[in-house]
């Protein structure tokens, strides 16, 4: 561990990694809290995985995979949102199909582009040590978009997440805000690609808010605690993986998952009533 702190003072890439993890945790805690209370982690996972399609296509045509991810995030958020609103009955089947197809298309395109093996692994499982200055700007920019949107529409997003019928009767365009929210999920996934990768993103999106949910009374407190937990998990996951040279993404997930399990067990043991 001490080696990590030593390296942190001298190595530029480690400082970037740490800053990236902190910035990413902000979006993750805020958006993840909605995902958890609205119970749409399956839909969020669908968006996350399908994004690989956009990355593969962008890479194949010589564009930056991150730009492809950003476009795919918006496109898949809209498609999956539309499916979830219009075909409620077969929602999970259709999402499952689109999820796999997105990934399959991505891999087909990546396989025809040079040097795909290296890149594929880092998109799927993240590589926080590869965060560049440009990535930091992208992450910071998306953070800002997410925070501003949530700040402007906090009331409406809360109403839609809590009680759609009542929200509709108060004149809120429920479907519009649902779509907006799914796009925010897409943005958050793009942010997380570098940190934990597409496959593991759903864990970091849901675990910190789910832990927070054991100890708070309202959604805004849930967001704050989830952000703090997210920062703790990414930073300590990075630190723990550095010395034994383990991949940081899986380390972050294993760490947060373990804390989650302990928290669930503690909740059940004490059966604390929330006041």
């Amino acid at each position, binding site marked *: 561990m001490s080696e990590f702190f030593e390296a942190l003072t001298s190595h530029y890439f480690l400082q970037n990694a740490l800053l990236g993890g902190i910035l990413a945790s902000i979006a993750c805690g805020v958006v993840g809290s909605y995902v958890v*209370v609205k*119970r749409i982690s399956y839909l969020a996972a669908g968006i996350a995985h399908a994004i690989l399609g956009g990355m593969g296509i962008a890479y194949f045509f010589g564009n930056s995979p991150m730009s492809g991810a950003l476009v795919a995030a918006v496109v898949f958020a809209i498609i999956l949102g539309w499916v979830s609103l219009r075909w409620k009955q077969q929602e999970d089947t259709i999402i499952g199909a689109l999820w796999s197809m997105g990934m399959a298309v991505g891999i087909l395109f990546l396989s025809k582009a040079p040097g795909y093996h290296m890149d594929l692994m880092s998109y799927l499982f993240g590589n926080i040590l590869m965060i560049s200055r440009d990535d930091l700007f992208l992450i910071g920019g998306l953070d800002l978009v997410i925070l501003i949107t949530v*700040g*402007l*529409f*906090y*009331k*409406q997003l*809360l*109403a839609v*997440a*809590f*009680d*759609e*019928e*009542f*929200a*509709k*009767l*108060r*004149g*809120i365009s429920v479907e519009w805000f649902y779509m907006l929210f799914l796009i925010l999920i897409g943005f958050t996934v793009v942010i997380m690609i570098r940190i934990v990768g597409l496959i593991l993103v759903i864990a970091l999106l849901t675990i910190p808010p789910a832990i927070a*949910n054991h100890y*708070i*009374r*309202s*959604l805004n*407190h*849930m967001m704050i605690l989830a952000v703090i937990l997210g920062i703790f998990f990414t930073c300590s996951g990075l630190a723990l993986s550095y010395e034994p040279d383990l991949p940081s993404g899986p380390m972050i997930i294993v760490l947060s998952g373990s804390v989650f399990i302990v928290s669930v067990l503690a909740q059940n043991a004490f059966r604390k*009533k*929330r*006041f």
Partner: protein
Amino acid sequence: MDSKEIIRIENVSFSYGGPKVLENVDLSIKENEFIGIVGPNGGGKTTLLKIILGILEPDYGQVTIFGDSTENSRSEIGYMPQIAKFNRDFPITVEETVLLGRLGRTSKFGFYNKKDKVIAKRAMEDVEVLEFKDRTIGSLSGGQLQRVLVARALACEPKILILDEPTANVDLRIEKDIFELLKILNERIAILVVSHDIGFISEYIHRAACLNRTLITHQVSSLDGEAIQDLYGKHVKMIAHDHGHGHH
């Protein structure tokens, strides 16, 4: 007939594609009225409410609220659903739940303003849940939660409060509490309550609208065994009643 008309339902018919659920329904609700819609399950009570709220469009006839379409004047209605569709574990406090009633009245962007907080506080005082304002809804009893939902409807500053089976899931003592509360609120707003329990609510309401596909209104005093038998029995009268009753 002095008091102002809030809701006018004229000759409304509706079907979900099959047999008619509502047929030639007429009803007029005036300021300060306390009216009960009663009738058997499947008699069209919830359907009629959905038409009043503008969630469903009638096949024939029309509903106007203050002379305007339901779409435009929906915000004048405070609505309390029969079964709250939300999840009881949702991390939301009583105060935040009541504040949701301000949507449509408050600013579109950002957070609630001071006026919203004052109105929500008054609504919580009215239904006596102010002391729980920082508790989560998951920690409330059934009766307390119903009161919170009444407060949320009051926070809309409605001209009329519409409640769908407000006491379906609570015990008899709480049912009485809630109707006592509605009686007090009725001093300043009109109330429309849907109930299957005609005997109980007749103590509180001014008029009963008996709905079983067609609608017949009765002054409470004339609500006798025969009328109830007509309503719930096999034989259904096909008459549109006159509504020229003031309240007593």
